[in-house]
C-alpha cells in the first residue's frame, strides 16, 4: 500500500487539488448565502443558529491547502509531470553556460572585468596611502612606490583595446561563433527526437532519492539536452582565453621582480618582531593584488560585445525552444527554482523549504510503515505500533533496586564448593532488576508512543501529587504559606532552562524527561487546584456544615468537585505546555520520540521529514485538546452555570 501511494502520488495530488478547488468555491458560495441570512443572528439572534460556520472553516482550510499545493509545485507535479524534467534540461544548459555568463552582466550588474578593475584600483590606492614608512628604508619605499605605479599601469594597459592581446580577440570571436551555432541548433525541429530507454527508466519526479530526473524524457528535452556537452566545451575554451599582450607580459615580469626583491627586508633596518610583522603584512597585501591581475583575466569592455550578443541569442533560442513550457513555468513554478545540482536537478528558491504535499505523504507512509526490515520506521523504531512488553520490565521500572538494599539481611555469598544459593533478598533483587519471567503483555510502541508515554506518566504524577497539595493549599493557611515559596521559586524558570541540569542528573533516558515534565505539570496543577479550592463559595461550605458533613467530607464532596473546572483547565494547559517542553527536551537528548526525529532530520536538512514531524506534533496537540474539551464537557457539564 505504501508503495502504491508513493507511485501514484501525482494522481492523488490531482484529485485532492480538484476536490479542494471545488470545496473552496462551494464553501464561499454557501458562506456568503448563509452570512446574508444570519447577519443579525451573530450578535442578537439565536446563538444555536450561529454555531454552524463549517463552510468558512472549509473555505479557510481549502485556501490554505491550495496555496500550499501551489507554492510547493504540487499542482505542476500533478498536472504537468514532465515540465520539471524539461526545465531541468534548460537548467543544465544554463549551468554549462555559467562560466561565460559570469563574465557578462547577465545575472550581475557589471562586467566581471569592470568589477575587477574598479575594486583593485581602489585597493591599490588605499595601500599606497597607508604605507607604514617606519618599517621600510628609503630605498624600499621607492621600490614600493614604483610597484604600485606599475600595477596601476597594468590595469590601464589591460583595459585598453589598442594594447590588448590580439590572440584573445580571435579566441573570443571563436566563442561567439560557437554560441551562435548553438542558438541556431536550438531553433531546429525536435518532433523526431526520441528519449533514451535509460532516461525513461529513471525514477519519477518527486521520489525521495531523486528530486527531478536529470536525463531528458521528452523530445523537447532531448533537443535542449543535446547542446549541453558542446556548451561545456565552449565554456572551457572561454575560460582559457587570456588577455596578455607582449607589453603587458614585460610589465608583469618587472613588477614581479620588484615584489620578489621586497620579500627580504633591508639588512640596514633594525626591526623588532612587531615591525617585521607589519612589514611582511604590507608586502603581502601588495603582492596579493598583483597576483589577481597577472593572469590576464581583465578584458577591455568592448571586447565582450560580440560574446554578449551571442549569449543573448542563445537565451532567445532557449525561450523559443521552451515554448508553452515557459507559460507553465511562470504560472506553476513560483520561485524560478529548477537548478542543476551535481547528478540531479533540485528545487531551489522560495518553494524549497515548503513541504511538498505528495512527498510529505510519501515520507509519512515510510515512517508509518511498521515493518522495520523493509525500511519503515525511523532509526530502528516504528512510528506507532505495538510490541510484547515483559511484565518484569514494568516491575523493574517501578521498584528501585535501593528499596531491596534497605531490607534487613544481606545478599547471599558463594558456598564452599563454589555454588551460589540465592536467599530471599537475592530473589527480590532479581525481581527489582527485571531478571524474572512473568510473561508479557501487548503494549504500544514507537516514536509517537514514547513521546505520549512521557507526557502521560508525567501528567499522571503531576495530577496525583499536585491536585491534593493544591487543594490543601487552597483551604489551609499553613499549606499555602509553607509550599507557596517553594513552588513560586522554581516555577517562573522556563522548563527548558531546567532541562540541561535534569538531563545531566537523570541521564538521557525516559526518567529525566518525565521528571522535567512532572515539574511543569506539577506547578500548573497545584496552582489550578488551589485557585479552584479557594474559590469555593462560603455559603456552600456552610450549607454542608449544617447538613452534618465533617471537614474531610466537605473536602472530598464539596471543595474537590467545586475545583474540578479549574483542575481540568489546568490539565488542559499542562498537557499543552508538557508537549511543547517534551519535544524540545527530546531535541536536546534522547534516541526516540518525535522531537528526536525532527532533530535528526534537521541535521540532514530533510525538509519533508521536518514537516512531517511538525504535522504529527500539531495533530497530536490538536488531539489532546479535543480529548480535553470532550472530557470537560462530559465531566463538568455544570461549568459556568452554578
Amino acid at each position, binding site marked *: 500500500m505504501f508503495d502504491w501511494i508513493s507511485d501514484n502520488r501525482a494522481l492523488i495530488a490531482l484529485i485532492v487539488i480538484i476536490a479542494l478547488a471545488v470545496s473552496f468555491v462551494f464553501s464561499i458560495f454557501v458562506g456568503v448565502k448563509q452570512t446574508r441570512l444570519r447577519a443579525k443572528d451573530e450578535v442578537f439572534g439565536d446563538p444555536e443558529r450561529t454555531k454552524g460556520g463549517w463552510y468558512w472553516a472549509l473555505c479557510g482550510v481549502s485556501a490554505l491547502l491550495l496555496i500550499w499545493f501551489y507554492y510547493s509545485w504540487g499542482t505542476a507535479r500533478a498536472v504537468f509531470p514532465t515540465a520539471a524534467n524539461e526545465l531541468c534540461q534548460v537548467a543544465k544548459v544554463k549551468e554549462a553556460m555559467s562560466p561565460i555568463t559570469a563574465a557578462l552582466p547577465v545575472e550581475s550588474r557589471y562586467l566581471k572585468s569592470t568589477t575587477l578593475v574598479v575594486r583593485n584600483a581602489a585597493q591599490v590606492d588605499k595601500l599606497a596611502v597607508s604605507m607604514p614608512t617606519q618599517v621600510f628604508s628609503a630605498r624600499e619605499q621607492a621600490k614600493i612606490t614604483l610597484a604600485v605605479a606599475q600595477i596601476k599601469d597594468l590595469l590601464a594597459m589591460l583595459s585598453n583595446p589598442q594594447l590588448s592581446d590580439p590572440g584573445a580577440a580571435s579566441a573570443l570571436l571563436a566563442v561567439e561563433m560557437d554560441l551562435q551555432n548553438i542558438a541556431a541548433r536550438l531553433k531546429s525541429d525536435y518532433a523526431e527526437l526520441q528519449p533514451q530507454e535509460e532516461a525513461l527508466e529513471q525514477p519519477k519526479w518527486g521520489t525521495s532519492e531523486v528530486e527531478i530526473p536529470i536525463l531528458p524524457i521528452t523530445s523537447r528535452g532531448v533537443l535542449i539536452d543535446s547542446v549541453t556537452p558542446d556548451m561545456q566545451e565552449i565554456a572551457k575554451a572561454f575560460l582559457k582565453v587570456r588577455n596578455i599582450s607582449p607589453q603587458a607580459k614585460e610589465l608583469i615580469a618587472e613588477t614581479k621582480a620588484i615584489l620578489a626583491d621586497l620579500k627580504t627586508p633591508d639588512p640596514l633596518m633594525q626591526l623588532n618582531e612587531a615591525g617585521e610583522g607589519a612589514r611582511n603584512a604590507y608586502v603581502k597585501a601588495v603582492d596579493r593584488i598583483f597576483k589577481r591581475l597577472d593572469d590576464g583575466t581583465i578584458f577591455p569592455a568592448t571586447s565582450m560585445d560580440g560574446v554578449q550578443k551571442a549569449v543573448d541569442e542563445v537565451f532567445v533560442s532557449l525561450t523559443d525552444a521552451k515554448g508553452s513550457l515557459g507559460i507553465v513555468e511562470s504560472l506553476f513554478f513560483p520561485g524560478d527554482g529548477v537548478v542543476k545540482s551535481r547528478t540531479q536537478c533540485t528545487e531551489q528558491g522560495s518553494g524549497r523549504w515548503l513541504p511538498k504535499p505528495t512527498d510529505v505523504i510519501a515520507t509519512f507512509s515510510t515512517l508509518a510503515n511498521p515493518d522495520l526490515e523493509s525500511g519503515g520506521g525511523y532509526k530502528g523504531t516504528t512510528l506507532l505500533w505495538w510490541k510484547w512488553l515483559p511484565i518484569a520490565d514494568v516491575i523493574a521500572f517501578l521498584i528501585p533496586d535501593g528499596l531491596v538494599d534497605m531490607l534487613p539481611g544481606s545478599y547471599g555469598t558463594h558456598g564452599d564448593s563454589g555454588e551460589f544459593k540465592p536467599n530471599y533478598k537475592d530473589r527480590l533483587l532479581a525481581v527489582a532488576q527485571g531478571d524474572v519471567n512473568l510473561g508479557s503483555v501487548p503494549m504500544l510502541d514507537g516514536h509517537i508512543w514514547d513521546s505520549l508515554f512521557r507526557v502521560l506518566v508525567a501528567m499522571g504524577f503531576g495530577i496525583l501529587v499536585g491536585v491534593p497539595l493544591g487543594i490543601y493549599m487552597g483551604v489551609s493557611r499553613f499549606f499555602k504559606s509553607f509550599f507557596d515559596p517553594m513552588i513560586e521559586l522554581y516555577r517562573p524558570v522556563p522548563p527548558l532552562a531546567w532541562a540541561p541540569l535534569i538531563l545531566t542528573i537523570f541521564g538521557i533516558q525516559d526518567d529525566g524527561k518525565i521528571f522535567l515534565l512532572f515539574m511543569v505539570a506539577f506547578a500548573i496543577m497545584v496552582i489550578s487546584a488551589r485557585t479552584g479550592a479557594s474559590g469555593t463559595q462560603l455559603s456552600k461550605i456552610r450549607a454542608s*456544615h449544617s447538613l452534618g458533613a465533617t471537614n474531610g467530607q466537605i473536602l472530598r464532596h464539596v471543595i474537590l468537585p467545586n475545583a474540578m473546572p479549574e483542575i481540568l483547565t489546568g490539565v488542559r494547559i499542562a498537557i499543552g505546555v508538557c508537549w511543547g517542553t517534551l519535544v524540545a527536551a527530546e531535541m536536546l537528548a534522547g534516541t526516540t520520540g518525535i522531537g528526536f526525529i525532527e532533530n535528526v532530520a534537521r541535521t540532514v536538512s530533510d525538509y519533508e521529514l521536518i514537516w512531517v514531524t511538525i504535522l504529527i506534533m500539531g495533530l497530536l496537540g490538536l488531539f489532546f485538546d479535543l480529548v480535553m474539551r470532550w472530557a470537560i464537557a462530559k465531566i463538568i457539564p455544570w461549568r459556568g452555570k452554578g
Partner: protein
Amino acid sequence: MQNTTTHDKARDAGLVCQLQEYKRGKMSDLYCKDLCMTFADPMSGSKVEALKDIQFNLKEGEILTVLGPSGCGKTTLLNMIAGFITPTSGTLSLGGVDIQAPGAERGMVFQQGALFEWLTVARNVDFGLRMKGMSEEESIELVNFWLDTVGLQGFGETPTYQLSGGMQQRVALARCLVNDPDLILMDEPLGALDALTREKMQSLILELWKKTGKTIIVITHSVEEALLLGERLFVMAPRPGRIHREYNLPFAEMGLKRSLREIKQEKEFSTIREEILTMIWDMEEEIMGGV
C-alpha cells in the same frame, strides 16, 4: 395503579418522619440569653457592636420572622444560631444543648440556594443522609417524599443548574428537611425570586411549617413577607444590634386556610405594615443622618 403505590410510599415515609419526631420525645426550644457579638478590627483596633444583649426564647414549632434595616445584625444572629460564628458573650442553646458548632439539627437555607451544581436534584437532597453514611437505596424513599412535598416530583435526576430560581429554593428546602432538623434557619430565602414565585414559595413555607411542625426562623427584607410568615416578628434596630420591638401575629395561622393575597387586603395587616415601615424608615433616616 402506580400512582397509588407512589402515594402510599410517600405517606409511609411521612409517617416514618413523624415517628422519628415522636420518638425523640424532647422539647427542642431555642434559648437565647444576653447574647453579644463584638467585631474588632485588628488593624485600627476599633470595635463594632453587631449585637448587644439579645434575649429571647423560641418554643418548638414556632415560626419567627426577623426584620430590620441593613446592618442591624440579622444575619449575624442567624449565623450564631447556626454555629458558624461564636458569640462574644451570652448563652445560646437548642433543646438544652449549648450551640458550639454547626450541626445537622439546625438546617440552613441560603438566599442563593447554595446547591451543589455538580450533583443532581436527588443527590443534592440526600447529601446530608449520605454524609451520615446512609446509602442511596436507603434514602430514596425519604428523598422522593420530600421532593413530592416541595412540588418537585420527577425532577430527581435533573441537574440543578437546569432549574429556575424558585425550583432551586425548593431543592434547598427539601435538602434541609430531609435531614430532619429541629430548627430551620432561612437567610432571606426568597430574596432573589420574582414576585409571583415569591408568593408561591411563601405558601409553601407555611404549608411545610404546618405539616412538619418545625421551629423556623426567617430573615427577610420584605415587611409583607415578615407579616405573612411570622407567628412572631422581631424588628431589630442597629448600633448596637438589638431587638427593637416584638409582635405576635395571627396572619401565619390565617395563611394556612386563606389565600395570601386576601390576607394582604385585611385592615389589620395594612395597619401593622405601615407601622413597621415607618419604624424602619425612621431607623434608616437616623443612620443616614448620623453619617
